[in-house]
């Protein structure tokens, strides 16, 4: 895919922490409206990849373009404009615990001063409705809602300002299988309803099969396989096979001392 047609265009992305190389030349493109899911073992660089694209971590080298425009080394205002295109669902929700649910959801609307507090509250309740939550939770604090509801509130916050691109960091981690499936369904429905481009990272293969159009597997700082979700069972890659079947034996080895 040429960079003009890609919503997200990444080439040669590298990042090291001290002597440890985490990303060693990552290349990928995500088309408008596409859902890319990045899979890989713990510590393989999945989170670092999306944090580099989001600008939360400065990469050592590489090109990142969003809608054909460079996304690295931006000034404050340019960075704010770029951030307006992004939404992010963090693994633990990352809700602001000193604010109520509706203030969390409407945070960006209030900060941008595009809405009065009354309008922002109404917009927050409408967005909460899109993730299956009623107005009765609006005045609760994040500590007063369950894990599944917290993820839904975090999803509502991510989509409240109607971004173009959403990043999901392990959206179903820590949830029971039924709640996880509800979250997966919500991700698919808001993506279709709002025409979003999404990049997700997950270990959860049920989630991969439900939300992905395309899957990329990262290992030792590189994408070792990329393909459509329908091809994942016949990838021809031993690494992918080992990962999706959750086998301890295979080319991916853990640094665990045998008893």
């Amino acid at each position, binding site marked *: 895919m040429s960079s003009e047609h890609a919503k997200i265009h990444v080439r040669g992305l590298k990042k090291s922490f001290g002597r440890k190389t985490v990303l060693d030349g990552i290349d990928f493109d995500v088309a408008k409206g596409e859902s890319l899911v990045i899979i890989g073992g713990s510590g393989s660089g999945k989170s670092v990849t999306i944090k580099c694209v989001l600008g939360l971590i400065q990469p050592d080298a590489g090109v990142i373009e969003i809608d054909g425009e460079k996304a690295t080394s931006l000034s404050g205002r340019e960075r704010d404009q770029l951030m*307006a295109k*992004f939404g*992010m669902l*963090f693994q633990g929700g990352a809700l602001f615990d000193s604010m109520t649910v509706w203030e969390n959801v409407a945070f*960006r609307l209030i900060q941008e001063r595009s809405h009065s507090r009354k309008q922002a509250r109404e917009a927050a309740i409408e967005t909460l409705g899109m993730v299956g939550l009623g107005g009765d939770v609006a005045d609760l604090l994040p500590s007063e809602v369950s894990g599944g509801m917290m993820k839904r509130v975090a999803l509502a916050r991510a989509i409240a300002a109607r971004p173009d691109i959403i990043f999901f960091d392990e959206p179903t981690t820590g949830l029971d299988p039924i709640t996880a499936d509800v979250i997966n369904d919500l991700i698919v429905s808001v993506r279709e309803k709002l025409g979003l481009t999404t990049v997700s990272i997950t270990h959860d293969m049920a989630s991969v099969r439900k939300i992905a159009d395309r899957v990329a597997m990262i290992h030792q700082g590189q994408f070792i396989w990329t393909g459509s979700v329908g091809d994942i069972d016949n990838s021809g890659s031993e690494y992918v096979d080992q990962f999706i079947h959750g086998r301890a034996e295979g080319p991916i080895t853990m640094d665990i001392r045998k008893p």
Partner: protein
Amino acid sequence: MNPLAAIGRTFLAFLASTGRMALFAGLGIFHCIVPPWYPRLVLRQIMDIGYFSLPVVGLTAVFTGMVLALQSYTGFSRFEAEGAIASIVVLSVTRELGPVLAGLMVAGRVGAAIAAEIGTMRVTEQIDALTTLSTNPFKYLVAPRLIAATVTLPLLVLVADIIGVMGGYVVSIHKLGFNPTSYLANTFDILEVMDVVSGLVKAAVFGFLIALMGCYHGYHSKRGAQGVGQATTYAVVSGSILILTFNYIVTEMFFSR
């Protein structure tokens, strides 16, 4: 292990962390000056840092003034210099004890709270969430705390000065049998504007340092409960040491000849 190499490594690490702190302070000041500002957050911090610290600062000041009067009497009565007690109390409280003790108490109460709050936000990715919501964490978290602490501590110290002097007055009059009129006359005769102003300037510097250390250590908190606990400890210890260091520097600036 080569002991010289260990000393060198420690020294280099100290220089590196001093540099990081200086850059953090510079960035913090920049975001205090350049809009957008968050006046609601500044007001909330003024309440947290100032209003809710009043009891602890007031209690510290009153007992300090009382003990100072008692101890001065014990020493000065040997030389029949009891008349100097009012001067000793008012000068010690306004120049030194008011700002330093209030600063240390606030470093313990507020510095720790700031480090714990921002540290928890760091480890739960709330600071990253701020960035993804187009909000600069320095403007939203650091600048309001720096402004509030710098503005509020002088007010707290002014209250501490008054309460501390009153503490000395109460002990001197009711326990040591001083004449109230002459005690107050001695107090106001010796007191100069610069005595109070130097204390308030110190308080502003201490307020900035307390908030800076709380924000810096919280912002760079390592993961987990231990990381946040460590950040809190560092904030209080480094804040307290900086208060004592800058107390000497500011005193030198005001009173050296």
